[in-house]
């Protein structure tokens, strides 16, 4: 179950947690308590779902009963719509936790014969609120009234009165509105909502749909104006927040073995920092996955949980391949320490992947995460999004003190030049695997291009993947690193340092 992030609640404005994963973090604790929030967007953007989650979570998790006045769906239809999320509306209604009142709006205009007001709606709402002692209210979508009543001036005045009425009763309300042509909502409801406006968007680029959320306005609360990607799945909405707006995560000085003794040796004899991010770049077949698997095995042997995201191969395939190089991962899968999650990179956008990565991490609580390979994740998205998305992921992992390994497939040539700079700059450690032919004999090499916060060896080692796993040897001296231009500086720096002459 999602939790509210109490740490993020800021002083000053009281918040009502939505219980929607990520949204409470983004808003610093939820929606403004005792105020009206407008959620707007086009049809199918998820606004009704957001409203219902706010209502049901309120009733179930936070002890705040809620009333939904639904202008579109009947009680039965709404109940079956949200049943797939595990919400049992009839049971909640029976327990007097949630009350749904379907307000049928005539398609045609009603004959109007003189003055009137919307007191009927007020009476109904008040009756419903009193019946279950509601603290939360959803009006979805109140704009439907505009199709029934022709006097829009009166309607606007009445809506204004209704929002004030809700606030006078200290009800926390969510009002939904259909996106207009140039305005946030078709009938300009945003003009009446002073405290909080959230806009949802659903767009399809290159046949991959992405959903985004933007907090347009949130009075009294610092909020990011960024768009936050979100996902709708069987658990409802989850928002992928920027987990750390500042670089405030703590840096661990604890070290974890890489699972390869010589590689540990190359890194001050201790291995990676816990909670650091490691990028392994290399051309096809250089042993990237084997390296990640070695680390995974070592972590599992320490009793740590590992989450392995496979974007290229099925778990079965990975297990078989690793077995062939003497790395038995199956036993850790059976022990429940290693969990594979395989998905097609193009099945959803990058946001979608990140969203499910967040969710699985929340469920599985691993100490190690492997993304193999990250190249495919990048391929699923336009390149300009990649950096901010990856930054969010890396930040998220660091905050959770999860050590992460990303493999990166480079296509021919020098891996240094082929690895997107945007990716490598986010990583604490960058390991290069490549084929070389020093004496006409092809062989593989591994070297650590960078590793923040430690005096690591920059000497390339011969890498042999055999039935006994990954083994690293010493490269003969007369063949120093032949890196590209990008690597030249790092190498010259190393020459002055610890590189044995």
């Amino acid at each position, binding site marked *: 179950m999602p939790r509210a992030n109490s740490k993020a609640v800021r002083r000053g404005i009281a918040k009502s947690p939505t219980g929607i994963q990520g949204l409470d973090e983004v808003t610093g604790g939820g929606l403004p308590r005792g105020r009206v929030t407008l959620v707007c967007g086009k049809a199918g953007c998820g606004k009704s779902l957001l409203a219902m989650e706010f209502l049901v979570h309120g009733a179930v998790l936070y002890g705040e009963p809620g009333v939904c006045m639904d202008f579109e769906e009947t009680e039965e239809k709404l109940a079956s719509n949200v049943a797939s999320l595990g919400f049992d509306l009839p049971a909640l209604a029976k327990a007097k936790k949630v009350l749904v009142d379907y307000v049928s709006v*005539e398609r045609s205009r009603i*004959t109007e*014969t003189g003055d009137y007001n919307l007191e*009927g709606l007020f009476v109904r709402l008040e009756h419903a609120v009193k019946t279950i002692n509601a603290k939360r209210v959803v009006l979805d979508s109140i704009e439907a009234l505009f199709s029934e009543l022709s006097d829009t001036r009166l309607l606007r005045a009445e809506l204004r009165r209704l929002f004030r009425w809700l606030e006078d009763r200290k009800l926390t309300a969510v009002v939904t509105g259909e996106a207009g042509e140039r305005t946030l909502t078709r009938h300009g409801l945003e003009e009446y909502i002073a405290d909080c406006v959230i806009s949802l968007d659903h767009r399809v680029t290159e046949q991959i749909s992405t959903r985004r959320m933007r907090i347009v306005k949130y009075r009294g609360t610092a909020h990011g104006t960024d768009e936050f990607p979100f996902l709708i799945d069987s658990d409802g909405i989850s928002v992928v927040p920027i987990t750390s707006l500042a670089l405030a995560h703590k840096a661990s000085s604890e070290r974890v073995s890489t699972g390869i003794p010589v590689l540990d040796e190359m890194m001050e004899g201790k291995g990676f920092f816990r909670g650091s991010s490691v990028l392994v770049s290399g051309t096809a077949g250089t042993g990237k996955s084997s390296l990640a698997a070695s680390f995974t095995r070592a972590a599992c042997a320490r009793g740590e949980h590992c989450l392995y995201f496979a974007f290229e191969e099925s778990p079965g395939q990975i297990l078989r391949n690793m077995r062939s190089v003497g790395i038995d991962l199956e036993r850790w899968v059976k022990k429940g320490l290693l969990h594979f999650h395989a998905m097609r990179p193009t099945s959803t956008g990058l946001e979608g992947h990140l969203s499910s990565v967040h969710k699985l991490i929340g469920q599985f609580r691993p100490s190690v995460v492997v993304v193999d390979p990250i190249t495919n994740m990048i391929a699923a998205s336009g390149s300009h999004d990649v950096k901010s998305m990856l930054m969010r992921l890396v930040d998220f992992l660091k905050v959770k003190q999860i050590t992460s390994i990303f493999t990166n497939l480079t296509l021919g040539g020098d891996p240094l030049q082929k690895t997107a700079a945007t990716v490598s700059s986010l990583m604490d450690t960058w390991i290069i695997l490549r084929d070389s032919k020093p004496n006409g004999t092809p062989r593989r090499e591994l070297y650590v291009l960078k590793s923040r916060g430690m005096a690591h060896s920059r000497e390339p080692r011969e890498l042999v993947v055999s039935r006994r796993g990954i083994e690293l040897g010493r490269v003969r001296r007369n063949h120093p690193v032949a890196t590209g231009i990008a690597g030249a500086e790092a190498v010259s720096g190393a020459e002055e340092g610890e590189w044995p002459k």
Partner: protein
Amino acid sequence: MAEIKRAAKVGKKTSSSRKRVPSKGVAAEFWQLRLYIAGQTPNSVAAVANLRKICEDQLKGQYRIEVIDLLEKPQLAKGDQIIAIPTLVRRLPPPIKKIIGNLSKTESVMVGLDLKPALK
């Protein structure tokens, strides 16, 4: 209650002749009207008075008005899907018709109730 039942029967029986617009004294149907108000507001008071006058003029002896004050019985608002106040619901003869407002525009009330054809 008995009266409503009887009225429903009458309404059903005469539904074939209902298509013709009834005029004063011709309509054989029984008219059952329900007026929803919320407290004694000027609009509500006016609506009750306006409705009584129209009915006395047009439907003398063949109508019944039920005034429902939603402040007293809020649970009744849902049945007829009341949003606006005042709302007049023609329960009989069928079909059910809704008219909102204080019924001050007599002409449009009569059109709305099918007591008078709409102006072309």
